[in-house]
């Protein structure tokens, strides 16, 4: 048994480092925002290794309908470099915590031209093999009403009210009936008790010869 455990642990230790070389990067899938507002694009990663001091984060942006990506943010060697020439100059801020594996950026004062795909790539040396993750940004002038939200809300509220009213109605009837019933029972019970107390006085003692075993 012990040798079996030792063998499996050795095998696992042999297998796991092979898979642990892959770094897994997480961003959102899609983000919605209003024109003029700020949005925080989050990026974090999972790695079997400790967070190294040479951890790097980089964000690239590809506008909707374009095939080219432009690099807008890079964090390396403990310093963050934000876009100072491209579409996001003076609008980009680094709000992440590399020590906590967070490489999030803040986009301020969104415009309609900011619609596009933002890709985050993180590297945690020696864990460098991984797939960058993308988040799609959609900028609206007015918050659109999603299909069916109002419909569902109206139907749900009305049917819920109906169920509630029916339940309350039957509950009230049940409670009122119970109160009436318990009142009549207590009156009945008092009468019975008085009657039985009068009878308990002259009860004859039990005759032992009559008790059957």
């Amino acid at each position, binding site marked *: 048994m012990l040798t079996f455990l030792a063998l499996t642990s050795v095998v696992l230790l042999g297998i796991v480092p092979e898979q642990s070389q892959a770094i897994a990067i997480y961003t959102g899938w899609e983000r919605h925002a209003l024109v003029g507002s700020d949005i925080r694009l989050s990026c974090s990663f999972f790695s079997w290794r400790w967070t190294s001091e040479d951890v790097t984060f980089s964000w690239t942006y590809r506008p909707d309908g374009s095939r080219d990506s432009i690099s807008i943010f890079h964090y390396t060697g403990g310093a963050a470099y934000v876009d100072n020439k491209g579409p996001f100059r003076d609008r980009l801020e680094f709000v992440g915590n590399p020590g906590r594996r967070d490489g999030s950026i803040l986009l301020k004062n969104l415009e309609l031209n900011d619609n596009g795909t933002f890709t985050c790539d993180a590297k945690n040396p020696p864990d460098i093999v991984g797939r960058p993750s993308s988040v799609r940004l959609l900028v609206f002038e007015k918050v659109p009403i999603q299909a*069916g939200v109002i*419909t569902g*809300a109206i*139907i749900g509220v009305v049917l819920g009210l109906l169920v509630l009213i029916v339940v309350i109605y039957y509950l009230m009837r049940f409670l009122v009936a119970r109160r009436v019933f318990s009142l009549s029972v207590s009156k009945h019970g008092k009468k019975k008790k008085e009657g039985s107390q009068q009878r308990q006085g002259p009860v004859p003692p039990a005759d032992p010869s009559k008790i059957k075993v």
Partner: protein
Amino acid sequence: MLMLAAIVVLHITTIILLLVAAIDNAWWVDNSVSADLWGRWDFSNNVWHYTNLKGYPEDYLQAVQATSVLACVFTILALFVFVAQLFTLPKGMRFTFTGILQIIACLCIMTGASIYTAKLHVNDTSGGYGHCYILAWISFVLTFILALTYFILRKKKE
């Protein structure tokens, strides 16, 4: 006995009309177009194509959708409650619960059809109201009559 059968038949007819009005996409028709409440049918190249509704005031459209569905639900509930009350109601009593459900259904379809008339297709120059719209108003009248019947009707004392 005959009256009971007539009321039940009328109620079932109302349910069917309401369901057709709510489900079939024919509140607004034009040449080769049949639209609302859920989608739009376009007839082109001898084939009917189904597309989403666009350019409508979303909140009003969804309110009409919700009230039509609620009208169907309440009128079907009213039928079940009526059948239940036929067996459980003490003699000489009125079918009030059924009547209440039916009047709520009447109010719902009236609200839906009114919102539709007032807020949707107000500025359209071509096209007209389709059979579902007409059925919706007919169902309003029928549900109203049925509700009154349930409020007045008494269970037979024998």
